[in-house]
Structure formats: C-alpha cells, structure tokens
C-alpha cells in the first residue's frame, strides 16, 4: 500500500522501522575492500577471495539487484577469445583506440579482449545460461551449432555474444557470499581513507554511512577496488519526471570518481559531459525501435511501407544477414553502447535504419507513426529478439516482457508503435530515448571520464584499483565491467599480500563524521536533499554547459562552493534515508567542481570528445590531442599531459601482450 494510504487508514504515522544510531562507529578490517557491489564489484570480490585475501564489499543498495547490471543484460562484449571469434585482443584494443582517436582506454580494452571470454565461462559455472542449450535458435545465422553460442552485431567475426543475463546478478551475488565475502549493504561510501589523512597518499580504506540506521562505517583495508557506477543527478535531476524512463537510478552518482578525486587521485576525460541523455523519453525498449536489443527488427510506417536498413556507411541493405555484418569486408562491427562515444568512422559501427529516414518523413513519403512488424521475421529470429534479447536486457523482463505479455502482447501478431516525434530526431535509432523530449541543456555525466591506471589497473594512489564501466575511464559496458572487476580484484589481493595495514588518521575520520552528521543536528534546517540537487543541476547546466570559458567555469566553481557553504549548511534530514541522499548531494558538488576543473584544463575544443570552449575555438589541435590527468594536492588542482597511448610507451613495452604477460601475474619478488 502507499504511505499515504497507511497514514490515512491508521491516522498515525509508521515509525522508522530500523533502530537509528547516528554516528555510532563500526570498524571493518579486511585485506581488500571493494567499493560498489555491482557486477564489477562482485567479480572483484570473487577474484580477490580466490587469491586468498579477506574481502569486504560496501554496497549503496542491496547487492542482489544493485547497480545498472542488477536489472539484467542481453549482450556480452569483449568475448574476443571465444572459439568462434575472428578478432584478436590486439585488434579489439587498437580498433577502439582508432575509432575514438585515442580518447578511450586501450589498456582496459586489451585486458577485456584477453579475459572477457574466460570471465563469461566462469559465469556459466555460477549458473548463468550463456548457450542456446534447448536449440531454440538452431540453424540461425546467429548461432554456432558446435558451441551453441549466440552472437550479436557481427555474425562473421563472432566476438560479441547474446546471453541469458536476467539473473546474472543474483548468481554473482550468491557466489560472492558463498566464498565468504563480508557484504555491507545500504552503506553509502563517502570518502577514501588515505595514509596520514593526506591527499595523494596511499589509500588504506574508506568511510561511509548506513542509510537505514545512520551508523558510521570505517573500512580499514590494505587495498581498495573502486567499482562504483555512472550517474546523472549532476546535470539532470527531476525524479518524478524521469525515473521511470532512465537507465540510471537515484543511487548512481559517480561516487567512485568523487571519492578518488577528493583523495587526490588522477582522473582523465572528465571534460566529456554529454548533452541530451536518455531521461525524458520512454521506458527503455518499451516503444518500437530498431536499436541494439531490437537490432534487425523490421520497421514499417503507418501505411505499412517497409523502412529499410542501411549499413553503417549508409547504403541500403537488401538481405537480412547484411544487417549483422560490417559495412566493409576488412573491418568488423566493434559493438554498440560500450562507451565509444560519437565515433568518427562508420567502418566499425552497427547497421541502422535508412539514413534518409527523416527526409522521407518530412517529405511525407513515409507517414508516422512507425511500427515494429515482427511478423515479417522468421519465427526463430522473432523469438530471438522478443523472447531472448528483450526479456533479458536491463529493466525489461518485468516492466516489458512480463507486463506486456500479461496484457496480451504477442510478437507474432502485434506491431509495437514507435514514439511520435519530430522528424529530425528519428535518425537516432533508439526512439525510446526521446532526445527531443529533453531540455537541451540537461547534461548526463555518462561520458568516458574516470580514473587513469597502470597495467595493474592501479590508479595514481598506491593501493587504489579501478574497475567497472565508469570508475575506470573509457572502459565499456556490462561484460567489460565484470572482466575489469575480476582483473582488478586479483591485483588488489596481490597488493594486499605485499603491503601491511596502516592505521587510519583519526582527524580524517572526525572531519568526515562532522560533515556527514551536521544535517541531523540542524533542527532549524530548511533545505531538503531534492532542493539542493535541483540547485546543483542548475549550476552545472549553466556554467558547464554549451557556453564554456575560463571565467564562466571559474564562476561555476565559485557558485558550487557558495552553495555548499550556504545552503549546504542549512540542510536537514528527517531520517537516515534522507541523510544518505543528502551526503550524495554533497559529493555531487565535489564532482561538479571536478568536471569544471577538467573543462578548464583542456584549452582547446574537440569534435571527437564533443567538448567546446568559446575562448579556445580551435578544434583538436595536435598539442592538445592527449589525455589531461587532473588531480588535487592540498586542495589545489594539478594537470599534466599524458599521451593517449601511454600504456604502450616507456616504461611499458610497445607490444600489448608483453605488458599483459608481465602485469597480469603477481609481481616477481625483486631479488
């Protein structure tokens, strides 16, 4: 029942159901601490346990369903070494770097290419189905009869798989707990502990609060893996309006980036802040579309005229197989939605609908609304899209498959309607994203920015490892997150084995506690967390939006600090849940400052990054075609230039496999 109904029916309020102890300290010691219990965090914990380390996991929600991956997945990217694949890890990493002009993480892509397939096989042992065991899709072009694996995007090169990923997270969670992980749910990590409490020093743990009891947690660890999620609350906030349509939920605030930034770690590509996220459209995949999960779904217009598919290069395709092939014989389709941003070469892109679709609608040749007409597919292909992909993708099993089926939707007979939208937005294939519904200045922070690491996925601070699709810069989607999580977990265990624990600095803990619990004592406070979040989003939209100059960004930083110093000190929280949301807002302010500092650091515009400076209009000048690691030391921001392919320059070898062989194993004892 709704809260209102309870209050009305009983005439009294339900008391807070959990015992509240604001400020009570809990100390947890472990070899490895994993911040974030998503798919990457679970794999990191499992890998560290397998190396014999004791592991604690701090999760903001509840590990069984938390994180973006908690809602399910239908694709597995990076399984490059599977038996049917024609792609090598080198090709996978080099292609990613080529189509992003270097603005992605070649190192991480290589590790993913090397270990993606093994990571998936381990999942199979944990009980996740990855093969078409019941031969439902026998003799289709997507399936390899021998291994019964199902492939997506590129049925020639077969490096990306279709998986039955609806229960992937529960399986991971069960395995993680079975191996003896010390899991702390409902715990919002707000800061890293550093040696001596200083910025830039070794990371020796983390701190946070529980959003049910309000208790304070101090995690002491020899090594920390940051495996948190992405986020949108920085540049886009209107929960009532967007929550049901968004791929990001309220728990996702890029907290990993922020605690690393506050601890003095180096971050890169934080100047990439995409405008126009997927927040004001429709529930994901609830509308007709031909994108990703629905790739290959036939589309007709209101009069039944077929809308043709086109290769990434734009020529119209006649045969169905061409949809799942690369535009050129000598290239392969690298995948979709894996953080490669607005790629500049069509050669490696997925096929789409007819590129002239919008003109044909404007001219009246095609009439809206468009529909998906699944009946034009052969039954197996139809079942593949609706029964497999759609019913296992994130946020689709219950809200779409089960709900629509309960109300009688039958793909054999029914045509799913596209969104009605003005023509020039329809060239974007996933029409459910509803870009034209979004205010133009709403920004999402799903850019590729994150922590820059060495070949052991260790950040610039000793003992801090980064994993997952967002904390590790430029590193892709679900499968990639699990692979980098598994890799980083191992590394953290080895690091912990060679380093001894360090007692955290009491002053750092006191500072954090005073900040976190101020709203609870502040009875006269008059600013709630939602009001503060609306204000933060407004400042980021205005001062870090399309019009960026040095002075405007400085003003933006000044506004955010002003907000923290004035309104931030007059906040109050009714209960630990509101307190948890409020401390997230405090960290969003730090994150906003980090984004603005990064935007200030890049003194040139870049078409590839989608980054523009009015005071530096020159686009992609050679001297600025590099990564700009940014970090804090005693509160001051430092920037340096780092070549995009730093991971194959001194001190590393130019040959990727050499580096992998050396660094993917425990460090040999220096004699």
């Amino acid at each position: 029942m709704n809260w209102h109904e309870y209050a009305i029916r009983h005439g009294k309020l339900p008391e807070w159901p959990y015992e509240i102890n604001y400020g009570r300290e809990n100390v947890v010691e472990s070899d490895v601490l994993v911040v974030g219990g998503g798919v990457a965090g679970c794999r990191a914990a499992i890998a560290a346990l397998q190396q014999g380390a004791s592991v604690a996991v701090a999760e903001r929600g509840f590990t069984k369903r938390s994180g973006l991956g908690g809602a399910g997945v239908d694709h597995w990217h990076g399984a490059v070494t599977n038996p049917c694949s024609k792609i090598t890890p080198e090709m996978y990493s080099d292609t990613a770097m080529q189509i992003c002009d270097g603005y992605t993480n070649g190192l991480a892509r290589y590790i993913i290419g090397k270990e993606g397939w093994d990571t998936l096989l381990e999942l199979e042992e944990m009980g996740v189905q990855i093969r078409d065991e019941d031969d439902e899709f026998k003799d289709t072009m997507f399936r390899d009869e021998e291994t019964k694996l199902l492939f997506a995007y590129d049925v020639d090169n077969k490096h990306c798989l279709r998986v039955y990923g609806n229960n992937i997270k529960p399986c991971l969670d069960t395995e993680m707990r079975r191996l003896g992980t010390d899991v702390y749910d409902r715990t919002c990590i707000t800061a890293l502990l550093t040696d001596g409490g200083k910025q830039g020093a070794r990371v020796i743990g983390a701190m946070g609060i529980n959003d049910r009891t309000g208790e304070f947690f101090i995690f002491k660890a020899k090594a920390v893996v940051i495996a948190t999620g992405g986020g949108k609350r920085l540049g886009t906030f209107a929960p009532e309006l967007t929550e049901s349509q968004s791929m990001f939920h309220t728990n996702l605030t890029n907290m990993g980036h922020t605690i690393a930034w506050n601890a003095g770690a180096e971050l890169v590509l934080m100047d990439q802040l995409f405008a126009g996220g997927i927040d004001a459209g429709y529930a994901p995949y609830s509308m007709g579309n031909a994108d990703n999960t629905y790739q290959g779904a036939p589309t007709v217009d209101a009069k039944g005229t077929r809308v043709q598919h086109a290769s990434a290069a734009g020529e119209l395709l006649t045969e169905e197989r061409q949809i799942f092939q690369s535009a050129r014989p000598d290239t392969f389709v690298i995948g979709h939605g894996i953080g490669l941003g607005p790629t500049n070469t069509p050669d490696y892109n997925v096929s789409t609908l007819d590129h002239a679709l919008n003109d044909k609608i404007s001219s009246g040749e095609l009439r809206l609304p468009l529909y998906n007409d699944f009946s034009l597919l052969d039954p197996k292909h139809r079942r593949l899209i609706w029964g497999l992909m759609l019913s296992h993708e994130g946020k689709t099993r219950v809200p779409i498959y089960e709900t629509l089926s309960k109300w009688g939707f039958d793909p054999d007979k029914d045509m799913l309607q596209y969104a009605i939208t003005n023509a020039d937005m329809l060239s974007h294939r996933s029409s459910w994203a509803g870009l034209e519904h979004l205010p133009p200045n709403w920004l999402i922070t799903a850019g590729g920015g994150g922590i820059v690491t060495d070949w052991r996925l260790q950040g610039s601070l000793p003992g801090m490892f980064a994993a997952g699709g967002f904390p590790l810069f430029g590193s892709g989607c679900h499968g990639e997150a699990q692979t980098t999580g598994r890799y980083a977990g191992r590394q953290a265990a080895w690091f912990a084995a060679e380093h001894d624990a360090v007692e955290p600095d009491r002053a750092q803990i006191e500072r954090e506690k005073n900040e976190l619990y101020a709203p609870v004592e502040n009875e006269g406070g008059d600013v709630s967390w939602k009001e503060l979040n609306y204000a933060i989003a407004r400042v980021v939209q205005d001062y870090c939006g399309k019009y960026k100059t040095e002075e405007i960004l400085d003003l933006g930083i000044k506004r955010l600090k002003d907000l923290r110093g004035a309104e931030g000190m007059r906040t109050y929280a009714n209960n630990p849940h509101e307190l948890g949301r409020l401390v997230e807002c405090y960290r969003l302010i730090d994150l906003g400052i980090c984004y603005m500092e990064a935007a200030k650091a890049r003194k040139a515009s870049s078409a590839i990054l989608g980054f523009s400076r009015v005071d530096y209009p020159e686009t992609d000048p050679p001297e600025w075609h590099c990564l700009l690691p940014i970090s804090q030391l005693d509160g001051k921001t430092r920037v340096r230039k780092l070549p995009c392919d730093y991971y194959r320059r001194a001190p590393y070898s130019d040959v990727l496999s050499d580096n992998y062989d050396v660094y993917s194993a425990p460090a040999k004892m220096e004699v």
Partner: protein
Amino acid sequence: MVAYSHPSQSGPCRILSFDKNKCVGCNSCVNVCPSDVMMPNPVRGGEPIVVFAEECWYCGGCVEECPRDALTLVTPAKQRLSTVWLRKDTGEEFRVGMRNPPPPNLTPPSGNR
C-alpha cells in the same frame, strides 16, 4: 468520514500492487530494492509500505524476488499510454492497463534458468 492533510503523492504514485491473499509480509521485496523505496509494515504480516515512490526505478527486482508472486509492477500512466501495439490483421490497438484487454500471452521468456 475522517480526512487528513498530507502533501500530494509523487507523480507516479501506485508503483506496486500487492495481491492481498498471496502477500504474507515476508518483506523480501523490501530488502531487495536497490533504492530502498519500501519499508516493512509495522503490523506483522501486513504488506510493505511504499514510502519513496518517485525513487522507484521500475527494474522489477522486487517482483522477481517475491517467493509467492504476489507483486505487480505498475508502470506510470504516461508509460502505459505511450506503449501501444497494433494487432496486425485486425488493426486493433492494445496497451497495458486498457479496459477489456485481450487474453494474456503465456509464452515464457527464453532461457531455462
């Protein structure tokens, strides 16, 4: 008849409906929710109370968690009105939440787990 003064409910307000004769108040849905939008009912065995409806993400984790299949996820009206399908041969239009809907489609999803 007693009425109370209370703020308006959030935009999407009834996000979950509990089947009265199936729900025994085990609260497993409460504990799986990533955003913790529900709380256990103070009355033992009572169905959980949705407190922070606008934080619901509609991932359906609670529905799948329920051991007695007592939960139905109720997507907001604006989604129900936007997701429409056309029966090809008859041209009839259907949607979630419509009056006199067609019979349910009982095909299970792919996968045998």
